[in-house]
């Protein structure tokens, strides 16, 4: 009886994994155009394994595409180990464009260093850090600039920034999060009217990546194209409620896409997605409940 129960539990785990087969390689995205630009969806704040993220870069690339993202930035805290590991892997799976990045985490600010060619020291002022990011070919984005994490951004730092996270999950998770982010974005725009509005998930362990996202009006679908668009301020931040932040003309162009992407629903969603998770969960739960074959 117990042996049959264990076989059933293993069968459920196997069935769940088999059910997930159809989502193995998501359909490639076909980004829309806006004049001469291609409109890419990106998440510029994603943590990965090894670090404080759940998924390895190659898995993130596939999951991001499944959530309708064209590009993601790998932003672990003060290191780029996951990017280095991803570069060493002999296989390259399909999926979203991966951008080498890190989240500079200091006592006074958090700053996404996106598209850099190497590590940037974090124990320096925000303005100096932004200069270091620029020296390494990247763009500097103020990460969740609210509360204590905004204190390090003086006027010199604001002048050096390329972008500001105007949409971030702390809008939903923290009291006054939405108000604080909006205030910082307005303050940055006061000094730099075309500063890029960025929407990011700050993804760690809990789905979905792309919960908040950025629409990027890029000249081309490449890392250089994305970074250039951020420098030009040709971006629109999109939160999980479908609200846009950024230049009015660009916001109007992606308002519908933002509403459709709100909360990062799965593209080509099918009943097999939750069914696969449920089967695996039931199987594992059964294996723990039934335990080993030993009689005591």
């Amino acid at each position, binding site marked *: 009886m117990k042996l049959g129960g264990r076989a059933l539990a293993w069968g459920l*785990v196997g069935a*769940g*994994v*088999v*059910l*997930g*087969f159809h*989502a*193995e390689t998501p359909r490639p995205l076909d980004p829309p155009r806006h004049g001469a630009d291609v409109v890419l969806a990106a998440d510029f704040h994603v943590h990965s*394994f*090894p*670090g*404080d993220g*759940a*998924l*390895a870069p*190659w*898995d993130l690339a*596939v*999951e991001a595409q499944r959530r309708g993202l064209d590009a993601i930035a790998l932003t*672990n*805290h*003060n*290191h780029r180990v996951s990017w280095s590991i991803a570069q060493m892997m002999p296989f390259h799976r399909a999926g979203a464009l991966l951008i080498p990045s890190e989240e500079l*985490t*200091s*006592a006074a600010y958090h700053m996404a260093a996106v598209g850099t060619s190497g590590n940037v020291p*974090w*124990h320096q002022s925000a303005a100096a850090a932004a200069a270091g990011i620029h020296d390494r070919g990247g763009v500097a984005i103020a990460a969740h600039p609210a509360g204590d994490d905004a204190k390090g951004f003086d006027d010199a730092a604001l002048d050096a920034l390329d972008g500001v996270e105007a949409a971030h*999950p702390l*809008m*939903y*998770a923290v009291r006054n999060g939405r108000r604080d982010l909006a205030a910082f974005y307005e303050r940055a725009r006061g000094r730099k009217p075309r500063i890029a509005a960025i929407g990011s*998930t*700050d*993804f760690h*362990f*809990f*789905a*979905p990546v792309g*919960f908040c996202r950025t629409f990027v009006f890029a000249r081309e679908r490449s890392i250089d194209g994305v970074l250039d668009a951020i420098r030009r301020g040709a971006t629109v931040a999109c939160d*999980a409620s479908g609200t846009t932040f950024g230049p009015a003309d660009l916001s109007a162009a992606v308002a519908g896409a933002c509403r459709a992407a709100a909360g990062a629903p*799965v593209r080509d969603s099918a009943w*097999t*997605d*939750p069914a*696969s*998770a449920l089967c*695996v*969960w039931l199987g*594992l*739960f059964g*294996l*723990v*409940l039934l*335990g*080993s074959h*030993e*009689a*005591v």
Partner: protein
Amino acid sequence: MNPELRLIAAPGPTYAALARAPSRIGPITALRRPLLVAMIIGCSTAILATRHATPSLVLSTTICWSVVVLIQIAIALAVIAAPARRTVGIPRALDLFFAAHAPWSLWMLALIARSPTAGERTLVPVLVAALVPIVLTPRILAAFFREVLELDPREAIRCTIAHQAITWSVLIVMFGWAVALIPRIVQWLK
């Protein structure tokens, strides 16, 4: 009730019975429980992060996060190897040691059932629920040292404290590196 769940309710008598029971556990079969734990961690991570499970995703997350199991094995071997040699043998001791993982396995499966999202308002219930395995595990391990490795009660408690101290120290160092803990502490002190 199976041995793993009985360990939660009555660790002493259950480990005493398991240690007495005839067993032919070799170095390979000793890995069945650690492998199940690695699979639970890998599948849980995949489902929490994506809400589905594909073959390559489950394989990838299980391999990546098996580093946690490897660290647990290394710490366990450092603590249990010497007494295990004169009692049940290292493979059987390792097998029974991982039977103590059931509380953490159940917590992870409960976390999936709770299914937090990226915009979660509070994770306090999840963290409070983790107190259950945090409290239960040392109790089970003390019984393991006492009944399986036949240490006297005082020595069993000493080994349990040593094991938990090493485990949590390694965890804090890894977590500290992953989240850049030092600047956060400086920020908090300011």
